[in-house]
């Protein structure tokens, strides 16, 4: 029983790491209906920026502040240079633009930061805490705390600030948003800047776990089942989605994997996602696509 609990909690905490990546997608999807394939590249770029600054001797708070500034600038620039010229283009064109953007960002990161693997030390060990009755990694707990703080901050911003309410309004009905005089382009820039900052947080936590290297941009692939299960447009949904993916893959690995030779953790979430696509295509909390005719 203690073992089951340990696997479950380990899985839930791992799921929070997936949620962090998925959150960046939701911010942009909610505000502009764009599936941002470059989110993974943004995670990589953010982590590389931070690590490089740290390695050049910048203290943690300064490196963090500088990285936040870089990611905000990057987000705003992407909105201005890539998306603004494509206003009213088909969703597929926008998706392909972000796909291209992913390659450009990765290439650009290689060009300025090089291709070495960097270690990232946040000063929190990934070793289990011994004093608790069940073994839990300190880094996992820290990540969970950061995720909770980030989600709470996003919640406050969406509920109380004009930009947040504006973003919800744009997501709800862009035509009405223009009719009341909301500045769509400014709001999109805010969403992209926000996604940049979320990418930085995800990049630091993932970087501390697996090292900062180019495969970091592949964490988006794990965010996909999270988004499919939770819904592309719901922050609560991706939290639930992340937890479901994390817990189910670990449980499946331990209890099913042992009978089939193991290694099912890597593909189990996708099978689950396909199941959701068949049973509930809009995800657990996504808006249902009901069109009045």
């Amino acid at each position, binding site marked *: 029983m203690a073992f089951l609990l340990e696997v479950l909690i380990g899985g839930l905490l791992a799921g929070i790491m997936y949620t962090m990546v998925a959150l960046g997608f939701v911010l942009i999807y909610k505000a502009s209906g764009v599936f941002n394939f470059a989110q993974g590249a943004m995670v990589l770029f953010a982590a590389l920026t931070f690590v490089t600054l740290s390695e050049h001797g910048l203290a943690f708070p300064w490196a963090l502040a500088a990285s936040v500034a870089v990611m905000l600038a990057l987000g705003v620039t992407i909105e201005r240079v890539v998306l603004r010229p494509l206003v009213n283009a088909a969703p597929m064109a926008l998706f392909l633009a972000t796909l291209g953007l992913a390659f450009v960002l990765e290439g650009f990161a290689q060009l300025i930061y090089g291709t070495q693997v960097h270690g990232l030390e946040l000063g929190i060990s990934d070793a289990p805490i011994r004093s608790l009755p069940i073994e839990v990694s300190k880094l996992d707990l820290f990540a969970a705390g950061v995720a909770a703080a980030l989600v709470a901050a996003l919640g406050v911003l969406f509920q109380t600030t004009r930009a947040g*309410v504006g973003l919800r*309004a744009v997501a709800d009905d862009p035509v009405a948003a223009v009719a*009341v005089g909301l500045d769509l382009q400014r709001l999109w820039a805010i969403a992209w800047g926000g996604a940049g900052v979320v990418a930085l947080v995800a990049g630091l936590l993932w970087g501390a776990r697996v090292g900062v290297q180019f495969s970091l941009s592949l964490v988006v692939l794990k965010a996909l089942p999270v988004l499919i299960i939770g819904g592309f447009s719901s922050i609560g949904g991706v939290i639930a989605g992340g937890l479901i993916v994390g817990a189910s893959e670990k449980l499946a690995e331990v209890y099913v994997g042992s009978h089939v030779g193991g290694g099912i953790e890597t593909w189990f979430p996708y099978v689950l996602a396909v199941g959701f696509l068949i049973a509930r295509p809009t995800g657990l909390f996504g808006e249902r696509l009901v069109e009045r005719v």
Partner: protein
Amino acid sequence: MNDSAPLLEVQDVSLSFDGVRALDRVGFDVRGGEVCAIIGPNGAGKSSLLNVVSGLYRAGAGSVRFEGREISRAKELSALGIARTFQNLALFRGMSVLENIELGSDFRGRATFLEQAFRLGRAPREERRSRDDAREILALLEIAKHKSEIVGRLPYGLQKRVELGRALAPRPKLLLLDEPMAGMTFDEKRDMCRFIIHAHERLGTTLVLIEHDLGVVMDLSDHVIVLDHGRKIADGTAEAVRNDPAVIEAYVGNFLD
């Protein structure tokens, strides 16, 4: 503002879609405090005209001036004091009635992101003002009891009323209404008429409206403009327009077509 100068001046506006002429040198003035109706048979160019005035369409020729200044872009309108409603409702259907109405006047706020997140500086004052303004609109349109409901779940007539509220929230000087009573039941129409009159009288809003129901138009309006095939065929008081042979011809002629 000089009393004799019109609030809105539309001069020689023409508009074509792929060679089809939707508006042909249409011009008219709307004075401050007036209720002006634009009527005409289907396809006469009424909505096109309203879309040009509100900057959604760019006229091929001619100009639209508000308080003497030329308007060209839709996003400047709210700051100038012009609001509009749409034939197919532009509302935030997933948000509450109160949020919809507050969003109507949102662009006036000046507090920064951080002031709002931490409720400092200008944020609380602006929030209070926007809440008070919204409350007044809710009372005026008698939708206070629905303020927390999600707009998409309300019946159509009420949604129309919320949209009117959203447009009135920033206290516009000029309000453009595109078929405010389309698709309503008799009772809903009567209520809507009352609310439009209230808005006009209590908030002093100048109104330009498109409407099909001629009875409603004749009752509400000080000034009626009649369009047919993209041209203005009459412009005057309701009484004068009603007896204009060209108007009778346009309406009767269209019935016979």
